């Protein structure tokens, strides 16, 4: 698997197969609250995408350099900055300093900061866009999509958690396309709900009820994407043909179920 394929598969897996709303159930509050009108839904989705990217970048940097211990050459060490600070106060101290207990509080701060940052940037450079976002930007601070993205990055920022370790590139791809997945979901939902205004729905189901049922049907539709990454991988890298002279070695790839893969299934190294 070359680099570009890995990145492409990771993007498709994150945005479509393991969609934030339909697979991981995060971001339901804006998904129900802001999906009545198409333009508002698109604004919300775009704002979430911008904030996930910035917050993902920040959380990876903080986790990698400060919070979580790293495995370097089979040896577990404190994160670089933490190690340097410890060396200042206790020269020669060789224990591992693990600050990951603080990660949840730190991430909340980071997300609030990222929202402020994106807000200032947009207000300065894109005033009409800022007017269009209106009240949605500050609301994003308590959005599960962003915290979920940060937690997923936390698992992959250090090699000690047992998950595959991501560099900054994979982190950014994951964070951006997690936001794009949310954008796709909320825009589809808004398109359906604009038509629903004219539909004859039973009174009890109006509002959130029918939205949930629709989300269930959409979720079934998105289950159809399972396996797209495998097919795409085969299309991009067709397995070598067997000839009379060269016999291809049997590949030992674990068969994966259609659902419940880690969001990194595309980025995982193939044996």
């Amino acid at each position: 698997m070359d680099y570009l394929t890995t990145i492409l598969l990771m993007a498709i897996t994150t945005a479509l197969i393991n969609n934030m709303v339909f697979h991981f159930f995060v971001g339901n509050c804006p998904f129900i609250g802001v999906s009545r009108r198409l333009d508002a839904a698109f604004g919300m989705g775009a704002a979430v995408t911008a904030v996930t990217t910035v917050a993902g970048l920040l959380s990876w940097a903080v986790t990698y350099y400060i919070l979580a211990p790293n495995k370097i050459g089979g040896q577990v060490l404190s994160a670089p900055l933490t190690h340097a600070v410890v060396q200042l106060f206790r020269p020669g101290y060789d224990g591992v300093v693990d600050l990951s207990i603080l990660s949840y509080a730190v991430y909340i701060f980071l997300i609030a900061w990222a929202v402020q940052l994106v807000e200032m940037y947009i207000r300065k450079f894109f005033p009409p866009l800022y007017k269009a976002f209106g009240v949605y930007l500050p609301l994003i601070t308590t959005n599960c999509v962003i915290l979920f993205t940060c937690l997923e990055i936390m698992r992959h920022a250090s090699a000690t958690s047992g998950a595959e370790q991501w560099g900054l590139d994979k982190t950014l791809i994951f964070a951006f396309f997690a936001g794009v997945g949310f954008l796709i979901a909320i825009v589809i939902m808004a398109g359906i709900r604009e038509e629903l205004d004219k539909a004859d729905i039973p009174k009890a189901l109006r509002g959130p009820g029918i939205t949930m049922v629709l989300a269930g049907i959409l979720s079934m539709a998105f289950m159809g994407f399972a396996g797209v990454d495998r097919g795409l991988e085969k299309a991009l890298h067709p397995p070598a043909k067997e000839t009379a002279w060269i016999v291809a070695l049997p590949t030992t790839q674990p068969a994966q179920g259609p659902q419940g893969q880690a969001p990194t299934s595309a980025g995982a190294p193939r044996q």
Partner: protein
Amino acid sequence: MADNGPSALQRFNNGIGPENPVFRQILGLCPTLAVTNTVSGALTMAAAVAFVLICSNVLISLLRLQLKPHLRILVFTLTIAAFVTIADRVLAAYLYSMSRLLGPYVPLIIVNCIIIARCEVCAAKQGLMPALGDAIGQATGNAAALLAISSVREILGSGKWFGFTLYQSPVHISWLGQGTPFWESWSIMILPPGAFLTLGLLLGLVNWAVAKRKAA
């Protein structure tokens, strides 16, 4: 301190019935949908939410006179984050397999709208007893909702309830003849779509019952 809000008992009753966090306020849906494919997972989640809700409500209520309006939300979130960290570590220490099963959804309690909403609506405005009553009521209402959704999903989806096998899928009945199953479990119910469908239809059912009661 003269409280000019509902009393503790009123708050408690409100949380279970008329202001049920899941069915009436539609708050905190991420864990509600994600962990309800088994009853045991749902009840563990409800317990974690209850712990965080009660602790943060009590603490915010004690701090309410010192709160500055513009820093309010930040204090709420940091308080909640501290208690969630405690709950998360306790789960990882004593119920490791459950902690693996719930995965990222325990830390996601931090951004659960139920808790921030209760801090905002009740704890920041009222004394200790109403805040405590409110927290216990909301936690009970949340647990009841999670229990209802997860019961439907587990019974229909895997033929079990709380891990006890109720029926072996597929169910055969002799007078239907061989080879025609009378009932097969709906595996869609334990997958993501089942969560959305169950919650949507239960919301409709609750709304219908409330409307009927009002009309009567």
